[in-house]
């Protein structure tokens, strides 16, 4: 279980290059580093639900990213906060 304040990295993975899939981790976050804000609960994995497969229940986190670092544009201090599943996060 990840804890608030913990540094994490989004997996650098591109499932869309390997065939039909359904992913809830946006393209712009792959490989990016962020900080866990809080645990949001446990939910059935949408990547399995989308294909009507029996889903595993997995942890969901709110993760904060530095907004200007994602794009090399924007105002210093601004943030993007995103719901991400444990299966997409690595401890940084």
């Amino acid at each position, binding site marked *: 279980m990840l804890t608030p304040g913990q540094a994490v990295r989004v997996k650098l993975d591109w499932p869309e290059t390997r065939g039909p899939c359904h992913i809830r981790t*946006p393209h*712009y976050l792959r490989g990016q580093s962020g900080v866990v804000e809080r645990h*949001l609960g446990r939910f059935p994995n949408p990547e399995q639900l989308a294909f009507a497969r029996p889903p595993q229940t997995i942890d*969901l986190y709110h993760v904060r990213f530095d907004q200007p670092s*994602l794009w090399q*544009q924007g105002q210093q201090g601004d943030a*993007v*906060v*995103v719901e991400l599943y444990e299966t997409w996060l690595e401890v940084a």
Partner: protein
Amino acid sequence: MSILEADSNRLLQAVLALLKQKDILTDQEIAERIASTDSATPARGAMMVAKAWVDPAYRALMLRDGAQAAEAVGIPMRGLPPLGVLENTDTQHHLVVCTLCSCYPRAVLGYPPFWFKSAAYRARAVRDPRGLLAEWGTALPDNVQLRVVDSTADYRWMVLPLRPAGTEGWSEAELAAIVQEGDMIGVTLPTP
């Protein structure tokens, strides 16, 4: 050509005919569903915001569990996704987007507006959020941190805006009347 490329109106008629024929749904259920969905409007969220502005205990409940706070004022939430509430302060402003589709806190705000579903909004909110806000005439001071919340998963998010100056002593109903849809997504700020 795929059968799915059929004209959308005909596709709907065909699907409806089959679902009714197979006893999966009825015209009455559809009519009731439309009526119930139409009854959810931004006035619901505005009522919650106004209550949170005058009642600290309600505000605390709303920030802890948005769905419970919605139910506490009679908004049905059973079977719906959790509702997260994002608190704006003097130093922090929230903006909600769904870059992957159109996740929207429908139970408290109703159908998502056209702009929320548009490619321009979805593309720009995470990359040029202050430029995007400028289109609504919303300018945040430099010392306010902007937090863009990309609604990607199981929660639905609404913004609890700051109570504007000049509303001292107003009733809940008067306060609710100035809270607009965009204020609860973060593109605009309530004004008295």
